[in-house]
């Protein structure tokens, strides 16, 4: 699915990240560089509402285990994106921000056609590089 990502121009990107300073820094820097719009969501619930209202060209999503066990990792938002009615919307490139990634997680990632994994510590530069790549796919 990832290699067949449709070319759709001008769509904003989605950033789901609870840390407001990291989120704001990435969105504002992208705007100042003229990369494009990045919509911010502090939680999967907010992201879910945004997804119902508009289309996105790609998403970077922070997943955190917190105190939960590995098999309770909440992948609901990713599945929601992949189940969208429009094939174009369901096929957008997704990057995941993870605390760590083991073999089991790699399988989960493969099944959901994740374009990139970003491991802690999360840096604005890495997220901006990821969005730049996603934006370039739109304009290719």
């Amino acid at each position: 699915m990832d290699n067949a990502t449709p070319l759709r121009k001008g769509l904003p990107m989605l950033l789901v990240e609870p840390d407001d300073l990291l989120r704001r820094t990435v969105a504002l820097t992208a705007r100042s560089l003229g990369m494009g719009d990045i919509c911010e969501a502090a939680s999967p619930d907010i992201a879910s509402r945004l997804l119902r209202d508009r289309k996105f060209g790609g998403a970077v999503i922070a997943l955190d285990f917190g105190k939960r066990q590995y098999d309770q990792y909440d992948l609901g938002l990713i599945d929601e994106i992949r189940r969208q009615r429009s094939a174009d919307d369901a096929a957008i490139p997704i990057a995941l921000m993870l605390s760590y990634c083991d073999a089991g997680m790699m399988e989960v990632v493969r099944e959901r056609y994740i374009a990139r994994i970003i491991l802690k510590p999360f840096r604005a530069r890495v997220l901006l590089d990821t969005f730049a790549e996603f934006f370039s796919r739109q304009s290719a």
Partner: protein
Amino acid sequence: MQLAPIPANDSERLAALYALLILNTPPEERFDRITEFAATEFEVPVALLSFMDKDRQWFKAKVGTDLCDAPRSISFCGHAIVQSDILVVPDATLDPRFADNPVVINAPFMRFYAGAPLIMPSGFAMGTLCLLDIKPREFDALSLSILSTLRDLAVRELVEQGSSLREDEGRNG
């Protein structure tokens, strides 16, 4: 070494700084977070949110130093506040303004500096959000943009502080 220049409007700039009532106040999480974020993002040993007083720079937030202030005359930030843009010194030993600066030729032997002036809507630069390293570094366009954003977020906090002070004054007559 070139001493930090004193801008022609420094007395007005200082009046604006003093009106913010921020000098010598305790650390605040909102500024600590921005400074710590900058240190982590750029992987530098020292990051500071610095305000330029008459004869000293005072650190509201700091990573990598226990100092509370430093002389204005030998400060890198003293040069940064007279610029409209970010001052980047990739290698201080190669820059005639800083090559024989005491913090370059003596401990902590600083080599790299990047300082974004905290320019308020009034046009006065209150201080800087700055990064220092003991290794020379390059600072690319993306780094400049990220530092600029962090500086803007710090300025936004200062502007809000100024607004709430004015509201308090208004309420108290």
